[in-house]
């Protein structure tokens, strides 16, 4: 793979990871769905199963919050042809509706497997490791 193609893939994968956060934080389920392969595996607080299970659980989970901000650090991306993996430390801020404006902050890492599909990179498996949580 040329250096240029490698850089283009790296940027496309970063964009994908950030589009996921945008989708969650804007409550845009279609945007969230578009980041994953239809049969992607998902293992996190919302579901252990497939991305369809996670998407089914998402609206109720989000309704508890006035806003969320999934603040992502630098992803570590490893590309191997049409497959890739990435690890991304993230601080997820949840603004509570009740009590109003209180923050729930959770530190996680997204471990993702990705594949190049005809219409671009997609997450095919995501496992979320939860490290810490703080209320206040």
């Amino acid at each position: 793979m040329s250096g240029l193609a490698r850089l283009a893939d790296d940027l496309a994968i970063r964009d994908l990871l950030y589009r996921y956060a945008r989708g969650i934080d804007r409550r845009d389920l279609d945007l969230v769905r578009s980041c994953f392969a239809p049969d992607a595996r998902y293992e996190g607080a919302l579901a252990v199963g497939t991305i369809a299970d996670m998407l089914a659980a998402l609206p109720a989970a989000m309704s508890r919050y006035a806003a969320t901000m999934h603040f992502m650090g630098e992803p570590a991306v490893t590309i191997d042809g049409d497959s890739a993996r990435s690890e991304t430390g993230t601080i997820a801020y949840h603004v509570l509706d009740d009590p109003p404006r209180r923050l729930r902050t959770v530190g996680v890492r997204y471990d993702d497997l990705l594949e190049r599909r005809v219409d671009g990179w997609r997450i095919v498996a995501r496992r979320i490791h939860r490290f810490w949580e703080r209320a206040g």
Partner: protein
Amino acid sequence: MSDLAYLRDRHEIRDLVTRYACAVDRRDFQAVAACFTSDAEADYTYFKGPIRDVLEKIRAGVNGFAMTMHVLGNHLAEVHGDTATSETYAVCYHRRPGVPDGAQLVVAMRYLDDLVRTPEGWRIRRRHATVEWQQSEPPRA
């Protein structure tokens, strides 16, 4: 547009947004101004207007704190020829003067920018800084 030109534009736009944050924290207001076109408009939620007015508000605001630190995260940009749009997450820490270590104001924003390619490089010509949440004097660890 070639892949190389696209990657270069994306990189320069990310650099521009980051340069803004570093310049504010260093209180280099000339460098802050250089991130915008001279006719730019900005809405920072707490204040808005033509960029020259907004820059004065930023200067006065930042100078009222003992220090600021703007931490940037998620960044997405779309390039359309000589214009672009971008969204950048920021968590901004402001320490008040004359109070013990840890007493600070934390403001989380999203910078929604319209950018334009100029002979000197990419510049912001419209900025909307939304406030997602803010917190004063968080509990001590």
